[in-house]
């Protein structure tokens, strides 16, 4: 087998495996992108909101007891934002794909208001698309790892695909036409946005 043929075989494997390893996420991204473009067609009704006020002590929300507090009060997701507002209340926002939960601990630290928003099915699915980053529990870090794999795969199988096309169909006028038209169009859009 010649070096060129070996190189082509390696590229073909990279192209295939990059696509296969991220197929589920890519299909999800295509579907949720469509849902996001047509967000008006997917009503926001159907979700639920509830609020409860709980008396607490400083020990309840101490570092040692925090994991238990989260579990007992069924606070889903990972901490996304934490701040102190003008009234001295501590605001903590937890997000998962399907839920948004806000904790408001009063300035004296003896009461917490928990507001839970459960999204409907469509917005929960879109919520998966919006999650990113290495924070929080293991499952979120695993998802972030998959997300990195998707990003790298997209780049890899695009580049390997183009190289294979140059070898396989380099005399195909349709392929060149599509490639050049795509390059010109995408280039013009980016330049217009850059200078616009």
């Amino acid at each position, binding site marked *: 087998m010649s070096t060129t043929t070996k190189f082509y075989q390696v590229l073909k494997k990279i192209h295939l495996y990059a696509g296969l390893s991220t197929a589920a*996420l890519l299909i999800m991204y295509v579907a949720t992108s469509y849902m996001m473009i047509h967000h008006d067609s997917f009503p926001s009704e159907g979700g639920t909101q509830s609020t409860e006020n709980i008396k607490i002590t400083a020990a309840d929300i101490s570092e040692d007891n925090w994991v238990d507090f989260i579990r007992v009060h069924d606070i889903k997701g990972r901490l996304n934002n934490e701040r102190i507002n003008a009234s001295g209340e501590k605001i903590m926002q937890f997000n998962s794909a399907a839920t948004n939960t806000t904790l408001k601990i009063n300035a004296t630290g003896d009461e917490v208001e928990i507001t839970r928003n459960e999204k409907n099915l469509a917005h929960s699915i879109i919520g998966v698309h919006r999650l990113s980053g290495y924070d929080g529990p293991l499952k979120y870090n695993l998802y972030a790892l998959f997300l990195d794999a998707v990003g*790298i795969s997209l780049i890899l199988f695009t580049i390997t695909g183009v190289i294979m096309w140059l070898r396989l169909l380099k005399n195909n006028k349709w392929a060149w036409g599509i490639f050049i038209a795509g390059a010109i*169009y995408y280039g013009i*859009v980016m330049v217009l946005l850059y200078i616009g």
Partner: protein
Amino acid sequence: MKKSLLINLHVYCGLFTCFYLLSLGTSSLVLNHKIEVDKKDVTQEWESKVAIDTTLADLDLAESIRDQLGMMGWVPPWRYHKEKDAFSFEITHLGKNSDIRTEFASGRVQVTEYRKGFLAVLHGMHFFNGKIPNAPFILRSFAVYQYLGLLVLLISLILGLWLWIKFSYHPWELYLFGFIFLSSLLIMILI
């Protein structure tokens, strides 16, 4: 259907979306690692004059000034700042932020532009759907490209999977990638 036809279709679909896929791949990494890609240096300052209608509400006034300046972009309400004799706001889009300060009496407008840079534009393509106020036709046509891009990506994926299953798969690949497929589905459900 003949294998060569399927391969051709797969290649055409891939070539049509290859630039979009490259920017989606790059921006996925940028988002996942929260990398700051926007430049914040002033790139240009200029002045102009517009007609001011002080009876307009803030949003209408900002849009009126933007339109008279012939600028493209959104005018986010949280960036409005109204003083006794002036109105400040921001015009923003994927590639540029512009701070606008307008004097009511003279209609004089001071514009300070901040170009975000090439990487920011590449990253911004992830969210771009062609819908920027005052965008030229070619930018608005991106809505069609985005639709076609998603459709063609899906077709390309399905064709690729079909070609693999029909002509070149090994059992161990099916087990391994089947496991990865199911694992990613499970993680998506869990989060």
